[in-house]
């Protein structure tokens, strides 16, 4: 199963990079969202899958799934949510100010 998950994560990464390379702001945000999905799946897969019960202590359970990657991913989900929401509002403001959401046109000052 892990092989399939790795391939799936790689597809998520590839589509994420493809979206990051687009011109429209919304596309780029979709790219970051896909990238974090891929990363979360990747972390979980690297911690090995289906090795036991959910990590909630219970009588008579010998094997639990690895809790550490889960804790890491939980933190990461929240952070990427924060970043995504900030980027969305940024896109909104940038569009309102510049009347364009084309990254090729949003190039900053003349003498950069």
């Amino acid at each position, binding site marked *: 199963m892990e092989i399939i998950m790795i391939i799936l994560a790689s597809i*998520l990464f590839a589509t994420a990079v493809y979206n990051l390379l687009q011109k429209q702001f919304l596309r780029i945000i979709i790219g970051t969202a896909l990238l974090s999905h891929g990363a979360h799946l990747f972390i979980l*897969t690297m911690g090995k899958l289906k090795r036991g019960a959910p990590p909630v*202590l219970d009588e008579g359970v010998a094997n639990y799934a690895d809790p550490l990657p889960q804790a890491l991913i939980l933190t990461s989900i929240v952070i990427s949510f924060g970043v995504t*929401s900030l980027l969305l509002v940024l*896109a909104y403001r940038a569009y309102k100010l510049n009347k364009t959401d084309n990254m090729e046109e949003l190039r900053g000052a003349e003498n950069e």
Partner: protein
Amino acid sequence: MVYAVFAPLIFAIIIPFLSRLKHKIHTGWLILPVPLLIFVYFLQFVGSDFKTSIATVDWIPSLNISIDFYLDGLSLLFALLISGIGALVVLYSIYYLDKEEQIGHFYTYLFIFMSSMLGVVLSDNVFVLYTFWEFTSLSSFLLIGYWHYRERSRYGALKSMLITVFGGFSLLGGLILLTIETGTTSIRGMVEQADVIVNSPYFLLILVFLLLGAFTKSAQFPFHIWLPDAMEAPTPVSAYLHSATMVKAGIYLMARFSPIFSEVPIFFILLSLFGLITLAWASYMAVRQTDLKGILAFSTISQLGMIMAMLGFGTSYAVFAAVFHILNHATFKGSLFMIAGIVDHETGSRDIRKLGGLMTFMPMSATLALFGTFSMAGVPLPFLNGFYSKEMFFESSLGLGGYSGSFVEGLVTAIPIIAVVGSIFTFIYSMYLFFGTFRGKYKENELPKEPHEAPFMMLVPPMILVIGVIVIGLFPNFFNQALITHSADAVYGADVTKDIKFWHGWNSRAFQMSLIVVGVGLLLYLTKKKWDSIYNYFPGRLNLNRVYDWIVEKIESASNKITTFYMTGSLRLYITLIVGTIILITAGTILFTNGSDFEISDVSSISAAEVIISIIMAVAAIGASIAKNRIAAILILGVVGYGLSLLFVLYSAPDLALTQLIVETVTVVLFLLCFYHLPNLTKDTSSIVYKGSNIVVSIAYGLLMMVIGMTAYNSRFAETISTYFTDNAYKLGGGDNVVNVILVDFRGIDTLFEIAVLFGAALAVFGLIKLRQDKGAK
């Protein structure tokens, strides 16, 4: 000795305060005692019973860098020149510079220079020497650009800075290699290990590095081009730095290290060859100049070339002559610069074509110039020191040998001829300098000012130097025993005992060469008008300044081109570069180290539900990328997120599934909120190549991550620490949910800052929406 070196530097701090008094008393008077006292201090070492002495101050002992000042004959000669001419230049500048100028700046720079120059010639530690060396470049830069509102000054200052610092860096490279090879930072220690250096594999590199340092500083061909442009500096600076002291730092360096290299043929070849080329080329160029300081600048270059060549000859006679000429050149060239400054000051022009017939107006200056120029030309008169060293130069250029190889033999034959040719031109420009300025027709209408004699005190410094010319000329052997022999000993590494004689007899080859120089030189000078067209025609376009300007311009435009090539401001290009670099470096590493490994063992079973979810997610991810409609794209993206939370459910991660579900929902809502304000997704109208390269980059990145994932999954070097968490979650944390115990107990700090991130994001969102610079706008 330490105080003597650092005294000017300490005074440089006080000078800005002293210069506030400049309307009562010229700052120069207040600081004149400093170089004078240093001169007197060094004078006490002079004598036939000279002993070397050492002074040490710790600086960075852990790196073997301490300020060791080592005074031997060579250092003493230089220290006397620096402090003595320094005092004269300060005196001269009092009359040269107006009180209205920023004289505080001037004297501060000058004193920094004086300290650093003393440091260069006295340092035994190579890194201390290098430090002082760069300080001389820096203070020279400041002094050349003293009239910074003039464009030419800034150009000259920048040029000298670029060239001398280039040489300074290669000198540093050479010194570091020397230190590595010998294991010592002391010059004396290096001289003792001369064979280690000569046999080292880096020997050639060391030699080239040191030569570059010396050639750039001492304005040797082809690095001489900065010196004529440095004439934009005030004349006292030109007299001090660019004739007597700083430009001799390279000479000093070669003299200091020559005991190491003297036995090596390549040293002889390079130093003699470049020295002679410089001598001949610069003396030819000097004849073409029309500016007094221009003539003197090229004359300085040519004389430095002559000294360099003599150091290259390396025989005891040549070394002696080189050291003697260092002293002689400093005296007559210093005085000539000062007189050029006086002429400039009193007539308003330095253009020799406008000057002429000044002898009746400025008899004193003319007399002084007469001695200076004739000494420079090497006219055989028994009271001109220039003649002695010039004749010793001829003498030493004859009968060099001991080296084999046809090139060296050819060079040895050519040396006396080049020497004579160079000296002929020296004679011509010396005569031109004197007779063109002070004799001939007085051109009343061309001068901005009515010419008159300089104030007496302004004439004192050149007078003292000219008296030096004559006294050395009359009593050469007195100076010989007290000073020059000791210096030559230090350079040669063994005892050099020489008598300086004026008369060698008619049969002396050197005297015959001198006669040729005077005869042909006189002939060519008298017919100079006829040759002017040749002088003006050649080298014409073969000007090295054009090469310098071309290089500087090309470097600027090339770096500009490179920067605008990749810094386009396009986010897509930057991401392509970043991702491309990741792919190239990582894939390259994997390929070169044979790091990939697809053999996966210890995998879990495959179930239908997971496969179906995976396929849906993959299709959704691709679909979100190519969807034409923004709502479609957002919703399909949601499918990926919900699919992921389903996977979390399947893989025994209830907390993750919960969070992912909520976060995905909120994200989709946010997307939907924003998209209302954003324009619809447009069709990608860009070219096939553009799209194709995007696809190639993304697929390559996906493949790379796949290889990394497959390989990393297999290589597990240690047991997981998770058993500790499951074992102790209840015992230590008092909770059943291990993930939550990790989040708030074992690794609580992660959570704290994750909250901070969320808080920061919320604040930023608030700020973005609420705060507007343009209050009125929507």
